[in-house]
């Protein structure tokens, strides 16, 4: 025991000394060599020019106070010229009203509208193992569209169009940026500055470093924060689908199968986008199928009757009858999803699904936004909306800090951002996780609980409203 303690003390001492030694060496380095190579000094560097990173840069460029700062956006991929093709891309996002209002406030939404988007006015979610279903409709809840389906490419192009327009003067963008590493503020001695080192030897310094660099965020790793994560051992299979019949197509459909949820998101009157979660092995099989057998398999997933427990059926119909007697919606007015005629050629793809939560979203002079801070199962269509919520809050708090005369690296706005966002994001992530687990079970009690729960939620307007308002803010 004592030995052990001495040992650990020794270790501690050693690390102290070695950190100290590193301190000295880095300071010296920055003193003679690095200083010359610093290519640019910025107030804020955003690492990662995906949808969330670009939106953050755009929102900062549009804010009356943050637009006085020098901002650098580092994006790993090259600058591609975007051409809107007639065929739809297979990667889409469902944007909620909160995201729409953010995009409107930074003048990005009109660009999206000029390209293409599809409003979702109804949503129907149902269980393959029972009769239970829930439906959301724009008319009875928000009096506005439930969500908007936008292709990732289109949204990114809309944001970039605004970002590169003359309305934003303070943001520099480096494409094809390969980041070699980040120097932590401590290693640089008293000056609380971040150094971003590029693989080509360039070096940028900034006061505040923001990681918008996705699930495997390097910025998060450099912050040394605890990251809780697990894989669902599932993949999301995506594809662009042609429907059998032309229809209004403003409904988003989701059916919970024991293997995972399958969702059809509307793109236009004859086209929908597929997001189909399933076990990794099954996903590989589905990807290898011919187009025709893929469509057959998919129609099965949407239509096939699964073995049902008579006890669950009895309970569900009894609860339905009770709700009907009480004058509440019993969920019997089921709408039928469209059948799929064909999948667009070469539109099939799959990506792994997982859960991730960074215990801290901020560290001194650093912050995380979007997938770098949180990752969620796509079944509720919340992932990117949570990221855009981060953007809105971070911009707001940093701008308030500047207006109060504080530095952008002051702990107060960063802590406010962290606690505010975690209070919203973590419950959403956990709810999605719980739903995913609950619906993967085929045990009778679990099926019964979720079926009755879904029926009651569908019947009780206030609860439904609460869910919707959480999902849209």
């Amino acid at each position, binding site marked *: 025991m004592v030995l052990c303690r001495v040992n650990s003390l020794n270790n501690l001492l050693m690390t102290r000394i070695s950190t100290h030694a590193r301190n000295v060496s880095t300071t010296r380095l920055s003193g003679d060599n690095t200083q010359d190579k610093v290519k640019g000094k910025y107030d804020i560097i955003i690492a990662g020019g995906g949808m969330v990173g670009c939106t953050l840069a755009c929102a900062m460029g549009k804010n*009356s*106070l943050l637009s*006085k700062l020098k901002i650098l956006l580092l994006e790993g991929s090259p600058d591609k010229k975007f051409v809107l093709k007639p065929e739809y891309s297979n990667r889409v996002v469902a944007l909620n009203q909160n995201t729409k209002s953010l995009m409107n406030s930074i003048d990005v939404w009109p660009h999206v509208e000029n390209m293409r988007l599809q409003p979702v006015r109804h949503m129907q979610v149902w269980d393959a193992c029972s009769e239970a279903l829930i439906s959301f409709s724009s008319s009875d809840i928000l009096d506005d569209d439930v969500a908007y389906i936008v292709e990732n490419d289109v949204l990114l192009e809309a944001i970039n169009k605004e970002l590169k327009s003359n309305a934003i003067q303070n943001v520099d963008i480096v494409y094809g940026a390969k980041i070699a590493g980040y120097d932590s503020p401590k290693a640089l001695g008293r000056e609380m500055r971040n150094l971003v080192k590029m693989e080509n030897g360039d070096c940028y310094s900034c006061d505040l470093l923001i990681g918008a660099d996705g699930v495997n965020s390097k910025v998060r790793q450099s912050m040394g924060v605890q990251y809780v994560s697990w894989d669902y051992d599932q993949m999301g299979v995506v594809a662009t689908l042609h429907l059998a019949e032309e229809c209004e197509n403003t409904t988003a459909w989701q059916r919970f199968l024991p293997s995972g949820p399958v969702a059809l998101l509307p793109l236009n009157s004859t086209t929908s986008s597929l997001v189909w979660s399933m076990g990794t092995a099954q996903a590989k099989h589905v990807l290898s199928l011919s187009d025709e057998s893929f469509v057959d398999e998919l129609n099965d997933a949407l239509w096939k009757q699964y073995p049902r427990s008579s006890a669950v059926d009895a309970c569900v119909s009894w609860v339905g009858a009770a709700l009907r007697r009480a004058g509440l919606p019993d969920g019997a007015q089921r709408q039928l999803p469209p059948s799929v005629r064909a999948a667009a050629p070469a539109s099939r793809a799959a990506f792994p699904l997982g859960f991730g939560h960074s215990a801290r979203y901020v560290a001194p002079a650093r912050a995380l936004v979007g997938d770098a801070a949180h990752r969620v199962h796509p079944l509720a269509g919340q992932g990117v909306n949570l990221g855009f919520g981060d953007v809105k809050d971070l911009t707001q708090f940093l*701008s308030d800090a*500047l*207006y*109060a*005369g*504080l530095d952008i690296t002051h702990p*107060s706005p960063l802590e406010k951002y962290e606690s505010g966002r975690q209070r919203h994001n973590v419950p959403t992530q956990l709810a999605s996780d719980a739903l995913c687990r609950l619906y993967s079970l085929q045990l009778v009690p679990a099926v019964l609980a979720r079926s009755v729960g879904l029926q009651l939620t569908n019947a009780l307007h206030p609860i439904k409203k609460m869910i919707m308002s959480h999902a849209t803010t």
Partner: protein
Amino acid sequence: MKNHSLTYLKMFLSRNLSSQGYKCPSRAFATLNNKTAIKETTIDQSHVDKHSKIAKEWWDPNGKMIALHSYNLLRVPYIRDGLVIEEPFKRTLTPLSNKKILDVGCGGGILSEAIARLGANVTGIDASSELIELASDHCKLDPKLVDNRPSYHCTTIEEHSQSFPDHYDAVVASEVIEHVANKELFVSSLVRAVKPGGKLFVTTPNRTRPMQILGICVAEHILRVVPVNTHDYEMFITPNELTFLLEKNNCHVQAIHGMMYYPVVNRWTWSSSTTFMYALQAEKLTDEDSNV
């Protein structure tokens, strides 16, 4: 309204009379040109000494003055919004530019620097020469203040307001009046320094028993988040007394907000109750206003 002022008057008189009994330092003796003159002052030397003693720790954000640093998050926006109202999309980094602000009892300059960062032309005065020296040295450290450093003077408000009457857009006395001996002279001097139509901002603890227990006994002696003997309960002033003094000096009190401090998390918040601390905003009336 008349009834109210009458009550204030009665309260104030009784308070003032009773305080005369045990607060002798309200008259200090100063030697001028070989003849001893009795000169009225607001300075309580023991309080000045107490604050000078901890000069070194003044600017350590986690040191003895930790609460004053986090206090800026509340009082700087309070002063800013009391002086200017800007639409969210038209905000600038220096909302207080062209405003002349006097920080009375500036100490090490924690508040003065914060206001100067918002573009204001800040003058800080304090009775302690050590603290004025500290404040003058420290403001050179912040690169953002290069063009707009506050100017600091070791003087008293009664002297300063003689030289600069009707001069400032705003006069701030944050956590000062509870250290002041002659409150009546202090308030009238504050008002003299403000331009007609200008603003006064005062923050101070309230003289209530809960404040005595939590603010002095617990905060100073048990938790030690405030240096021991910083505050003297008998020198605290209530919002009513302060309002009375200001209105007597031709000011209109516009708002009184309660404040609360949470030591464990080191955070200040606005509160609906003025039991513990309060912030007061007043406007000096112009001649036309007072005639109406």
